[in-house]
């Protein structure tokens, strides 16, 4: 009990000092902007998602929009694809990012150059990447399939095969995002004290053992960060899918965000808003437990 007291006191003193440092009304401008630009639209969207909305009129219809979303085969397809896309890209970025990070922290030639090269796609505009890759992936004239032809392989119909399209986009997303994942992983690896490796080597541990027993467990915070970021990125992805396939062929590569956008384009504003609320809930439901888990581990 006694030991706790100074701690509590200190915290109190700190919060008092923070309160008195600036008067409350200093927070007002920021609060008003945040309220008007973020809180009001957010809560308004919960309301509008339960209406029939034409921008000119609206009529309250309860949960009909949500019912519609879950009953419509191609809207549901978007939801499934969103999870497929989110988990595939997150898994890809974590494994590839880890492998690249291990490679790029070892003693190899051109390490600096290679690090830059891996990071480079992060700097390019997503739409640019999408348009470039949709040309590269063209089954007849695209460079990828022509290159495969040279080594005697018949390349797949990347964006045209409806079963493959969403995974082709996911592949490009992994290429685009792996640079950032690698960067975080490298930072995570750099934080592992070298003493562990020295001790392990003295005990005769192989490189493989060192990776599984030291590197992997100790870079868990980095892995968790990359997983969270990639999952959230993957679940709310829109620009890459839109630039490459527009959800096509047919509805085969639609994700939640592209479905929402198409409903908006069609003028189904209420339905589109309901989609946004669903997307919000999905991302929150996936991200919150991971973030909570991550925070607990770090304490």
């Amino acid at each position, binding site marked *: 009990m006694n030991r706790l007291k100074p701690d509590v006191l200190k915290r109190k003193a700190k919060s008092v000092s923070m309160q008195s440092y600036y008067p409350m009304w200093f927070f007002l401008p920021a609060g008003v902007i945040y309220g008007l630009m973020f809180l009001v639209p957010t809560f308004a969207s919960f309301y509008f998602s339960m209406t*029939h909305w*034409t*921008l*000119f*009129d*609206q009529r309250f219809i309860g949960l009909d929009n949500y019912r*519609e979303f879950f009953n*419509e*085969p*191609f809207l549901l397809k978007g939801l499934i694809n969103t999870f497929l896309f989110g988990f595939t890209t997150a898994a890809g970025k974590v494994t590839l990012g880890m492998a690249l990070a291990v490679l790029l922290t070892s003693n190899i030639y051109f390490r600096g150059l290679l690090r830059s090269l891996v990071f480079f796609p992060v700097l390019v505009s997503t739409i640019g990447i999408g348009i470039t890759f949709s040309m590269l992936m*063209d*089954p*007849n004239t695209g460079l990828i399939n022509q290159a495969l032809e040279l080594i005697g392989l018949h390349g797949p*119909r990347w*964006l*045209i095969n*409806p079963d493959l399209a969403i995974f082709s986009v996911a592949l490009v997303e992994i290429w685009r995002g792996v640079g950032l994942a690698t960067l975080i992983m490298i930072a995570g690896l750099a934080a592992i004290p070298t003493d562990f490796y020295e001790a392990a080597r003295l005990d005769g541990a192989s490189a493989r053992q060192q990776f599984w027993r030291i590197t992997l467990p100790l870079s868990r915070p980095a892995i968790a960060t990359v997983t969270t970021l990639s999952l959230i990125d993957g679940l709310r992805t829109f620009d890459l899918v839109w630039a490459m396939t*527009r*959800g*096509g*062929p*047919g*509805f*085969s590569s639609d994700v939640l965000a592209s479905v929402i956008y*198409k409903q*908006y*384009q*069609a*003028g*189904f504003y209420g*339905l589109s808003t309901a989609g946004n609320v669903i997307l919000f809930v999905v991302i929150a439901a996936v991200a919150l437990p991971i973030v909570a888990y991550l925070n607990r581990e770090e304490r």
Partner: protein
Amino acid sequence: MKTTTSLSALCLAISTGVGAPAFASSHSGAELSMLTDNSPNSVSVANALVTAYEERNPNVTISIEVRPGGSEGDNIVRTRLATGSMTDIFFYNSGSLLQALNPSRTMVDLSEEPFMDRVSPSFQTVVTQGDGVYGIPFEAGMGGGIFYNRALYDELGLEVPLTWGEFMANNAVIKEQTDVAPVIGTFADTWTSQLFFLADFYNVLQQDPEFAEQFTQGNRKFAESDAALTSFSRIQEVHEAGYFNEDYESAGYEDGLRMLANGEGAHYPMLTFAVTAMLDNFGEKVEDIGFFAQPGGSANANGLTVWMPGALYISQTSDHVEEAKDFMAFVASTEGCEVIVDTIGASGPFLVETCGLPDTVPQPVADMLVYFQDSDRNAPALEFLSPVKGPSLEQIMVEIGSGFREAQSGAELYDRDVSRQARQLGLSGW
């Protein structure tokens, strides 16, 4: 509803407040703004009309803004109208898409204007909501059907088909005797996949003359009407027979025009506005291209499905309604259509009644005009007879045309899409 009204009232107040001095000096000059889509035709027509009008009215200047076409453009137009930030004059589709803009609350009613007497009644019906008439035709009327290679037809001794069976037989001959792709598909531009369906509507009406009214009231379903279901299955038949070009899934509209002009493909289902683009890019070769209406079940009832052009409208938030109306009067006049013909050529019949066509027109246009000579041989597309058009049609047609959905299931999916649109429009019976 409340927020939108007050918002537009606010915008109106702001804009009139700012606009008042400008209006006071409008004797010496008014500045109008106009929004058009980014298709080469619209941009050049808009520029030519504005230049011609400004020459005659030196005290008026009209600035042109360009927006994307397709559903991205729909977004822009709807949002700008809803937020009261629309230009004075704007270009937009007629027919079903117009209905979704709620014209009676956003646009200036032109029904009392003297120049409307010159606009053909058939066009007026597609820019009408309730008692109001809101637009004037911006370009010429169009037909939806099938472009074909006349040279190839001559070489193989083929006849223009009057029934779907004859069309498929021609395709069989082309496939057997040449390397030319019998039918050009360009699914990368998904909208082009709709033509076999949309251009079949004349044939639907022959079997079911009341389809449009019954459909609007919610009494006809595509999946349950034999005539309409046939429209869905046309593209499936072409796909199953293997008549499409090899890269039909990844080729786009521009590729389609190139293949048609260069003789790499024999048939291309398309709207006749493509004639202008072909003239621009391939010049003389257009004379080898012909056009016929999409054939249906019977040779005795063969006719063309007709598209109305987009229209110019005046926004209710405009400060220069009178000046804008004067510009509209110019566009809907003989002088106006002469400017249009000089700019993009004669691509179809004009819907301003004082306008004629030049004596020589490109071959596909001449082929199309034949159907206009007899009123029994043409009928409007469904989107001009009913306000209901589902937004997912192009994706559904791509699925059917690529062979991963059956026509029947596509029709059922489209019925749901359509009913969502009808409920959004607040129609009864859905």
